[in-house]
């Protein structure tokens, strides 16, 4: 009975993401983008805390790594979605682009955390030097996500 | 239903389903031995526990032993294990029927104790510290 319930629950979770009705598809896009927004917000908070020496590097690294996984989930939710009409298709594409951008920024943030921790990435050119640069990049990614979210009618 | 004479006036009625079945069995030191999974009825005239005679309808019968082990499976799923596989605790070893059944013998002396004894000798007792008393300072 337990396994049946778990199986039912997990299949129910799957149907939400790939449902065929336009409203449902839009809601699925909004869900995935909101999830990505949460990941970017967590990364921003972590970066500012690490910059202020209020958080230890293992915790900061774990926090950002966990967000990379969350973004992966959002990406999967968007890529596996089958949009039933043009409107939701456009929303999905916008969402994918914004989530991809957010993922890139969070991955950069992780490299920055590693450098703060004294890792051997100090010469890598793609990593911003200061926390404020990084935070600005993350803020931009967050704004992009918010724009898609507004498009998809999420709060 | 079986009757167990109690000291003083009258007789205490013990309901097999309510007061015996599925009750915990403790040995003389208070160590749990098993649970009462089933009860064996034998003919009242054959008191020889080594060769109990099955209770026959219409004849006086009495409680021969507490049964445990494989009979639990057959009580759940139906059927009946062969008599050779019965795990028995003779009723004469039972000293008191309360919220648990208290025996007058030690668990180690009972046949039903073999799985515990086997694991003790061959597995748990062999791991370092397996015979260490946790209540003593280590």
């Amino acid at each position: 009975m337990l396994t049946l319930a778990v199986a039912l629950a997990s299949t129910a979770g799957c149907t939400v993401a790939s449902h065929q009705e336009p409203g449902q598809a839009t809601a699925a896009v909004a869900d995935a983008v909101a999830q990505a927004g949460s990941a970017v917000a967590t990364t921003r908070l972590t970066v500012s805390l690490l910059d202020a020496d209020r958080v230890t590097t293992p915790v900061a690294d774990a926090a950002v790594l966990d967000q990379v996984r969350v973004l992966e989930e959002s990406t999967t939710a968007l890529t596996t979605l089958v949009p039933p009409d043009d409107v939701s298709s456009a929303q999905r594409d916008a969402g994918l682009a914004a989530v991809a951008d957010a993922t890139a920024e969070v991955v950069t943030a992780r490299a920055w955390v590693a450098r703060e921790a004294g890792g051997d990435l100090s010469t890598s050119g793609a990593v911003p030097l200061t926390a404020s640069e990084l935070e600005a990049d993350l803020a931009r990614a967050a704004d992009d996500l918010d724009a898609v979210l507004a498009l998809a009618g999420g709060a | 239903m079986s009757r167990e004479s109690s000291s003083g006036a009258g007789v205490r009625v013990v309901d097999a389903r309510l007061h015996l079945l599925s009750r915990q069995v403790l040995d003389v030191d208070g160590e749990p031995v098993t649970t009462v999974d089933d009860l064996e009825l034998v003919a009242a005239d054959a008191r020889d526990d080594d060769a109990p005679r099955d209770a026959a309808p219409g004849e006086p019968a009495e409680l021969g032993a507490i049964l445990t082990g494989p009979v639990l499976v057959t009580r759940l799923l139906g059927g009946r294990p062969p008599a050779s596989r019965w795990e028995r605790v003779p009723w004469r070893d039972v000293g008191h029927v309360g919220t648990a059944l208290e025996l007058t013998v030690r668990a180690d002396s009972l046949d039903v104790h073999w799985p515990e004894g086997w694991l003790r000798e061959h597995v748990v007792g062999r791991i370092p510290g397996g015979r260490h008393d946790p209540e003593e300072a280590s």
Partner: protein
Amino acid sequence: MKKLLGVALGILTAIGGFVDIGDLVTNAVVGSRFGLSLVWVVVVGVVGICLFASMSGRVAAVSGRATFEIIRERLGPRAAGANLAASFAINLLTLTAEVGGIALALHLASSVEPRLWIPVAALAVWLVLWRVKFEVMENVAGLLGLLLVGFGVALFLLGPDWGELVRQAVPPSPPATEHVATYWYYAVALFGAAMTPYEVFFFSSGAVEEGWTAKDLAQNRVNVLVGFPLGGLLSVAIAACAAVVLLPAGIEVSSLSQIVLPVAQAGGTLLLAVVIVGIVAATFGAALETALSSGYTLAQYLGWSWGKFRRPARAARFHLTMVVALLLAVGILMTSVDPVTVTEMSVVFSAVALPLTYVPILLVANDPEYMGEHVNGRVTNALGMVYLVIVVVAAVAAIPLMIATGAGS
């Protein structure tokens, strides 16, 4: 003086032992999504666990019979067997979540991958079960778990708008962005986290382990009635920290690392370290309790010799059960399933399983053959009936809500 110290120790252990990975994760998730609008569930859950734990402790102290012996005796082999299968499975799920929680917390402390910590954590749990005296185990885990009070300290350091927090809590005002079904799903999850059935197995068997008698009932009552509500306050502090820092930032908690960020913001690395030690201790203590509970339930159903107070060789099957349960938990975690997901599942299924343990205890607590003069009073029974309804409603609603909300997503 010594007696007073004993009372204080009992209370402190009860506070530190109250919070486990289920409380930690569920409260933080709820705080970050619903603010304090579900605090009432924590209150209902704490009153419930007080009622339930004191009743099962009283039954064990007076009759010397632990919970699952009673379940077997009352329900018979068939119904009790089904109950055992469900309780054991859910307890195993909780054990898995706790061991995973230790590994995640150690990951935060060390940046060594959680998968490497899982076997180490399980081995440490086993060594304590194998070797350490019951009272020592209880007290050390409980006292270190008290470090979670760091969440309360963090809340004060954050200096939140208290009026706003109270407004979220009374009357409960869920945020407009969340669906009603999701709100109720998390209400059930929070209730299951506060009233996990293993606490009852553990509490009643622990009373037997510590050799309680009717004389210890007063101490039992004080431990539960003071310790658990204070432990409940810790849960609320965890939710409040998330509500103050994470909710406004639009962060939905999905990992342990997010739960400690508000603490870092409020108190810096020192307070963060204190809280991480607290999390390790709380999850470790709960892992011990759930591992023991797996042994307790099976041994008590089958009438095996059990108890940590015996030499392991004198309770061989009991100790072997715990080893197998720990190995199964490690096996489940090694499939790289997310421990936070396991935790969320375990609290919901705990809510489903609650009536299975609750109903037999309520029946036996009213049985003069077991309880003599210590049968339930009228007030306890009235409260008991109210909770019977709540527990059954939560159990029935849990799985439909889980399916309807896609497990709260």
